[in-house]
């Protein structure tokens, strides 16, 4: 088999919507008989409050349900099937032991509002994870409460605001480099701040001289991604954080790219005051087809009083949730975060240890640079600056034949790969952003490289083959504009 024969045909069953299946009277579940004295429900609750049958809910057997979702599942690409070159998304293998540990009954069946003495194991897991994340990021304290990365961003920004307010002036603006993730400006807005974009220099990093001109008393913080979304380390990061601090402003770091730096460099050591960490990226909690994620925030001492409440604390009898936090920004989610994800992330950290995590970052960077070296003739490098865990190309060469990034991504499906991140970062026209992660073998990387090179050749010789891709998937490109014009967002009975 050569790499081009990676895709083979195999039957894939069509399946209707759940709501079009089943038959009256079928059921997939039996409830034990009622063991308290039976009453007519209308003796307990006024019939005017009760609903009639819910129209359109299907009646299905257990096998119906299993077959339905199993068939659906075969229509998905997923990490257990193959590589995801998604830049900035860190799609790495999700170890099976994580799943098994998160499903221990002692974790699944525990309620967070039980008395502290009955939840010591869960609190121990949270505290240990907090300590590990603080050490990995070089920070002093961690909250596991945020539900996802963007939620962590908001939490961090609210703490920045609370810190400024405690000093008398919340300030107005947050500076954001033009290469930032879209969540950054959206999180700034929801935190009641205004965004001011700062341009990148020709190396793709933050322009320190420009920054010196714009950091004034209205600026509450800079929100920086490091390594940035080009996969480039901000070489002047120490100078940037010093500048911000000297003008009374703070530094927020988007920790989306932490996978490049574990055991190599620590945000806390180069002056970052607060960052969020995506457990579903660096720490292998599965993406689940779009969530749940988990976005803990790590802070320096000065911001610790403002952490969301409760915090996991310890006294002689053991751990407890401390709600008595008068400077806290408040709650940002009920209870204390996506605990199932905390178990998985801690399992991953403990499975790797200090040497293992460092090796993770080393191999992630090695793999990205290998792809860079092998593809830089066929695809134009966006910036010459050295890459860490991801590399950004542009479609400049292919665009001459009217083949664009979107087409290249779609054509990759025909070679058995998920497309890379495209059209991001916004500062690179026709960006193709590739992050292989450390869990891909050289053979898998070579297969991907070979596919990318084959597509480059096709783009030159037979561009129509690429622009009309994919050719091997269940369905072709869906007309998104038409779907959005008259949105059909649910099934309805005829």
């Amino acid at each position, binding site marked *: 088999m050569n790499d081009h024969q990676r895709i083979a045909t195999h039957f894939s069953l069509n399946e209707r919507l759940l709501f079009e299946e089943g038959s009256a009277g079928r059921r997939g579940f039996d409830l034990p008989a009622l063991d308290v004295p039976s009453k007519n429900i209308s003796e307990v609750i006024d019939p005017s409050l009760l609903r009639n049958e819910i129209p359109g809910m299907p009646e299905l057997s257990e096998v119906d349900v299993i077959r339905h*979702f199993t068939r659906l599942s*075969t229509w998905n690409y997923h990490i257990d099937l193959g590589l995801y070159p998604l830049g900035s998304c860190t799609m790495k293998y999700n170890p099976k032991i994580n799943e098994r540990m998160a499903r221990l009954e002692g974790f699944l069946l525990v309620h967070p509002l039980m008395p502290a003495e009955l939840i010591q194991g869960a609190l121990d897991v949270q505290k240990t994870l907090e*300590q590990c994340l603080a050490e990995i990021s070089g920070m002093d304290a961690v909250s596991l409460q945020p539900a996802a990365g963007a939620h962590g961003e908001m939490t961090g920004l609210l703490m920045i605001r609370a810190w400024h307010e405690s000093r008398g002036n919340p300030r107005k603006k947050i500076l954001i480099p033009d290469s930032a993730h879209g*969540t950054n400006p959206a999180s700034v*807005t929801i935190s009641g701040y205004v965004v001011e974009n700062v341009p990148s220099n020709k190396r793709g990093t933050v322009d320190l001289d420009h920054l010196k001109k714009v950091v004034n008393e209205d600026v509450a913080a800079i929100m920086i991604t490091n390594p940035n979304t080009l996969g480039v380390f901000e070489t002047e990061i120490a100078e940037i954080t010093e500048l911000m601090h000297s003008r009374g402003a703070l530094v927020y770091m988007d920790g989306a790219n932490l996978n490049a730096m574990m055991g190599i460099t620590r945000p806390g050591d180069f002056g970052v005051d607060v960052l969020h960490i995506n457990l579903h990226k660096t720490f292998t909690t599965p993406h689940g087809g779009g969530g749940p994620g988990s976005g803990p925030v790590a802070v320096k001492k000065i911001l610790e009083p403002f952490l969301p409440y409760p915090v996991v604390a310890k006294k002689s009898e053991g751990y407890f949730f401390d709600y008595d936090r008068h400077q806290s920004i408040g709650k940002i989610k009920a209870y204390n975060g996506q605990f199932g994800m905390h178990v998985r992330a801690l399992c991953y950290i403990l499975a790797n240890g200090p040497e293992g995590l460092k090796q993770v970052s080393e191999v992630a960077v090695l793999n990205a640079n290998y792809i860079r070296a092998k593809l830089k003739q066929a695809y134009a490098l966006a910036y010459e600056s050295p890459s860490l865990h991801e590399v950004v190309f542009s479609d400049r060469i292919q665009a001459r034949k009217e083949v664009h990034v979107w087409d290249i991504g779609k054509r990759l499906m025909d070679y058995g790969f998920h497309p890379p991140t495209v059209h991001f970062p916004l500062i690179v026209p026709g960006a193709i952003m590739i992050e292989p992660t450390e869990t891909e073998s050289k053979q898998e990387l070579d297969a991907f490289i070979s596919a990318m090179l084959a597509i480059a050749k096709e783009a030159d010789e037979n561009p129509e083959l690429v622009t009309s891709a994919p050719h091997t998937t269940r369905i072709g490109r869906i007309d998104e504009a038409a779907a959005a014009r008259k949105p059909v967002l649910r099934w309805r009975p005829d």
Partner: protein
Amino acid sequence: MLAEIGIDSVEQLFSGIPEKSRLRRLLDIPKALTEPELIDYFRERAARNAVDYTSFVGGGIYRHHIPIIVDALISRSEFYTAYTPYQAEIAQGTLQAIFEFQTYMAQLSGMEVANASLYDGSTGLAEAVLMAQRVTKKNRFLIARTVHPEYRAVVGTYAKNLGIQIELIDHTPEGGVDLAKLEAALRKDVAAVVVQSPNFFGTIEKTSQISDLAHKHEALSVANVCEAISLGILKPPEGADIVVGEAQSLGVPMSFGGPHVGFLATRDRYVRQMPGRLVGMGKDQSGHGGFVLTLSTREQHIRREKATSNICTNQSLCALMATVYLATVGPRGLREIAEQNILKTDYAVTQIWSRTKHRVLFPGPRFNEFVVELKDDYALRAQRLLKNKIVPGISLSRFYPELGNAVLLCVTETARKEQIDALVQGLA
């Protein structure tokens, strides 16, 4: 690989990082554990959580039986290791499942359209408030004090810097929203009235009258549902413009507070003001039908600072749990489960009234939670019950100090009669 890159060592890959920013020691975290050691480590911690107790703790997270096939299906790596379905051609499985979730949530909530899920109920409620602000362009919100206190706290955190003013509406001695106080507080500048039903005390609110009052004053009616099983038998909040809530009860483990799954449903005319992802039907160039993420121009990756929300993820896998759960129990199973919650709760309430000296506050109607005012100290009483491996419920002193020694108890279909009797005996 090093030769292809043109370097001699892995260390050279990091030459772009200034020396002063390099960490020149190993991270101070526990040394690596092998698989058998990891299993011991987590088993030992799991064992320090008391899951063999009979628990009457609810308050937004509910213990319901989860059919085995839910975990069997969501454990397929095709679902749980897949990325967000931006590439529709190779993500139809996830997309169709979300479309089915949206349909189920719209059916249950009695609304026209539902989104692809939100982080959880509490953040969902905050998003609903921000959505109501966008729809009405007004900033004043009336929120019932009977809304889950932690949800109210989350709304407060979100609202604080966005010019939103919140006024709390008290409850009557019957445990529902005080309609007279609500009407007195309603003026044309109110964006929305926010209630929860069944409310934090378990009482079913008069949603129809509340919505009418809101609409009379040109405010939206926002209804929060923490206990989604209730929608299997109770009328969905009547007259609501946004129904938002938590679907943990539908097949999602309690898991110490998360991951759970929020939902948000509304009327078609507000769909472009909704937060969060949406899956829609579409067609490819050959006319084949399929599903695709749609209306994404509302979202942060397109609109950046002008997005309807900063949300980037939904809770796809938990939404899948809810979808599989609903498919498995079906409409009749869901109604039976809901009925058992009502009847077992009614049994517990009746027994506590007749066999103990404590008072059950609020007459109902209620779904599966109720408040008991203890005649003695909660801590003492709880200690006695805990010795018998019974967790009696949540003390309300932190949330509603004016209720004195009040405890919130929850009885679901999973509570057996002898367990309820043991609770009553422990309270006697």
